[in-house]
């Protein structure tokens, strides 16, 4: 299919892409910045290329360096993952000029959906409803105010070029409008570098449901079901699942049909996600196009778990010009899957991102458990990038079985040395409203205090002190040159700073030294 695929990303997604390539027998090249020399994704590929300093602008966001790395490693294809350059139309253009295959949609499609205003027009052309609001041609203060009044309060002002909820300003009434427009303009300039705004009605307690689509160059557009991503903090997803709970069959059909229409109308190619806001639950609930993500989505594993498909494999096949490796009839989703995003962040400090060294690490396993991780013991979590460390996904026959499996597995997931949201994720999964499938985007904010911190149990704290005391005594014995005590397993013969490290990890590193800069 390809001689070598360069993975223009880092962290868990780079590891995940490398795994599929390895299974398919396609050699890979990783890229790494100064901050990522010992990162897990570097060892996951067959070779690795150093691409610059820690600052993303000079490494993972530098198209020149990515293209140079592809050439240096002998790659003939580039997979962008998500984030970084994945939605920058300049990367596919540069790949094209360099004679490389870009694993994703064509530049014109990315450019179209990269502008929120053009994306809304694309949806309207496909006959799909958009959130009430407008796209002011007149970007002056009175021009925006007029569109805002027409859409009705409460409303949101968003940067047209932004994403991920950044730079969004909420306005509840006429009296806040003038100051709100000025603030939204500043926010848009600061976060997106472009002051163009658009207006959107704010829907109370909405759900965020999205549809996975895959399209090849031969006219096949296939939907792979929906994902509910309503559990969010600060407009960033935390828990995702498929199928969406409490979604009527009529509403589901409307969503899936609308997603395929948008993709088909736009001449879409490769994997993409059409996001919707849902207002209500029944067949006649409001169902509005939000945006289309022209790349592999963070939460794609839940779709893979219930369909049995490998989306990266499909992306590679489509990129190589092949037909979709399956037909729509063959896609029969089975069971329910839930994914939890493990972030280096402190929920008690308003989800402040955390950086540091992972001093201890243990991944759970078990029936229906899938871990996509970019970290391990001894690995530094740098301040320069997104704080997503790993994703834990669970699949079960029913939603309840998937929920129980995810909850139990999170209890075995040890990421020590810096604060993470693992405790919070467990409390979300155990919350009555989540158990009932009563999810909406305000869930975390609404139940915040009960979810952010647990009241620690004294007996558990006592058990922890006991374990530490014995571990401490053991270290003292060792430093005094005494042998291990009777109940003690000897320390490992090969000290390692990696999870499950063995001779192969060492070889990967040795190769890295040979093939790197």
């Amino acid at each position, binding site marked *: 299919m390809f001689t070598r695929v360069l993975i223009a990303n880092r962290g868990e997604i780079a590891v995940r892409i490398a795994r599929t390539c390895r299974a398919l027998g396609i050699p890979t090249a990783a890229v790494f910045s100064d901050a990522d020399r010992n990162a897990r994704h570097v060892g996951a590929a067959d070779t690795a290329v150093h691409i610059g300093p820690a600052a993303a602008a000079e490494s993972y966001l530098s198209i020149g360096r990515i293209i140079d790395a592809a050439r240096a490693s002998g790659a003939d294809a580039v997979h962008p993952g998500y984030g970084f350059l994945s939605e920058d139309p300049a990367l596919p253009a540069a790949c094209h000029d360099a004679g490389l295959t870009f694993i994703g949609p064509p530049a014109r499609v990315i450019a179209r959906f990269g502008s929120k205003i053009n994306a809304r027009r694309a949806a309207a052309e496909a006959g799909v409803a958009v959130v009430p609001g407008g796209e002011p041609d007149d970007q002056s203060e009175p021009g925006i105010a007029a569109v805002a009044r027409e859409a009705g309060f409460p409303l949101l002002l968003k940067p047209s070029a932004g994403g991920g909820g950044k730079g969004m300003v909420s306005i509840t009434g006429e009296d806040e409008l003038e100051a709100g427009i000025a603030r939204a303009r500043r926010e848009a300039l600061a976060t997106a570098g472009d002051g163009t705004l658009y207006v959107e009605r704010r829907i109370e307690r909405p759900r965020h449901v999205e549809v996975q689509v895959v399209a090849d160059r031969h006219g096949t557009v296939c939907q792979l079901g929906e994902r509910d991503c309503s559990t969010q903090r600060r407009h960033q997803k935390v828990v995702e699942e498929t199928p969406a709970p409490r979604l009527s069959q009529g509403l589901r059909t409307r969503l899936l049909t609308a997603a395929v229409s948008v993709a088909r109308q736009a001449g879409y190619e490769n994997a993409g996600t059409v996001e919707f806001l849902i207002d209500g639950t029944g067949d006649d609930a409001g169902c509005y196009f939000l945006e289309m993500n022209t790349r592999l989505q963070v939460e794609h594993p839940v779709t893979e778990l219930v369909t049995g498909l490998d989306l990266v494999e499909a992306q590679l096949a489509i990129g190589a010009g092949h037909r979709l490796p399956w037909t729509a009839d063959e896609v029969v989703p089975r069971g329910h899957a839930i994914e939890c995003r493990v972030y*280096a962040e402190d929920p*008690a400090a308003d989800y*402040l*991102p*955390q*950086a*540091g*060294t992972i*001093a*201890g*690490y*243990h991944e759970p396993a078990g029936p229906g458990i899938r871990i996509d991780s970019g970290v391990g*013991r001894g690995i530094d979590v740098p*301040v*320069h*990038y*997104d*704080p997503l460390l790993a994703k834990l996904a669970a699949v079960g026959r029913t939603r309840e079985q998937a929920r129980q499996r995810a909850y139990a597995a*999170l*209890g*075995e*997931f*040890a990421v*020590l*040395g810096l*604060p*993470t949201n*693992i*405790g919070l*994720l*467990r409390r979300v999964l155990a919350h009555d409203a989540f158990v009932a499938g009563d999810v909406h985007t305000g869930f975390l904010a609404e139940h915040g205090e009960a979810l952010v*911190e*647990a*009241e*620690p149990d*004294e*007996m*558990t*704290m*006592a*058990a*922890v*002190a*006991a*374990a*530490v*005391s*014995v*571990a*401490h*005594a*053991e*270290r003292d014995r060792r430093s005094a040159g005494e042998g291990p*005590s*009777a*109940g*003690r*397993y000897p*320390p*490992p013969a090969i000290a390692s700073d990696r999870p499950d490290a063995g001779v192969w990890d060492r070889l990967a590193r040795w190769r890295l030294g040979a093939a790197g800069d």
Partner: protein
Amino acid sequence: MTRHRSRQWVVTSGAVSLPVRTRHDDDHAEIEIEIEIEIGAGDPARTVTATILSSSDDACIVSVGGQSAVVRLAPHASRCHAMVGGETFTVMADSGAGSDSADSDEHAATASGVDLDALSAPMPATVSAILVKPGSTVKAGETLIRLEAMKMEQAIRAPAAGRVTAIACRVGELVQPGRPLVALEARPTTAGKPHQ
């Protein structure tokens, strides 16, 4: 000859800290280790007995009151991080209280309140903007410095009205937690207008 080991710890989870004293035989020939635990600083302290069923470098199986749990461990600097059932704990030796010595400089640091003299970085971050100069007069809550970490911006604000006496960082610099960024001299708000 049997040695006994008695140590005082502070176990922290979120906002809760609990003093705990552990006592066990240090020359244990038995596979299972019995540990006496006193919980809390109260009088009389609650006492329980734990049994260590097995231990390795990064995990212990501990049984307390008929319940056993895997405690994952990771010593890091002067503290030990631990995880049980998805909840994390930090354990520090309480110096001066046990029969063994232990470094607890970080413990002392966390006990101090807001330091008006020097405001420091709460986490590793890049300095994205410095909004004041030495000599600037600032109001309580005014943003002095902006930090950026992992695509998020965080403001270092003045905890009280005062005057900036020194700037100890540069724009673009990567700073570690605890690194002083800006020095402030507190000034009573009734002191009147700043002189030019």
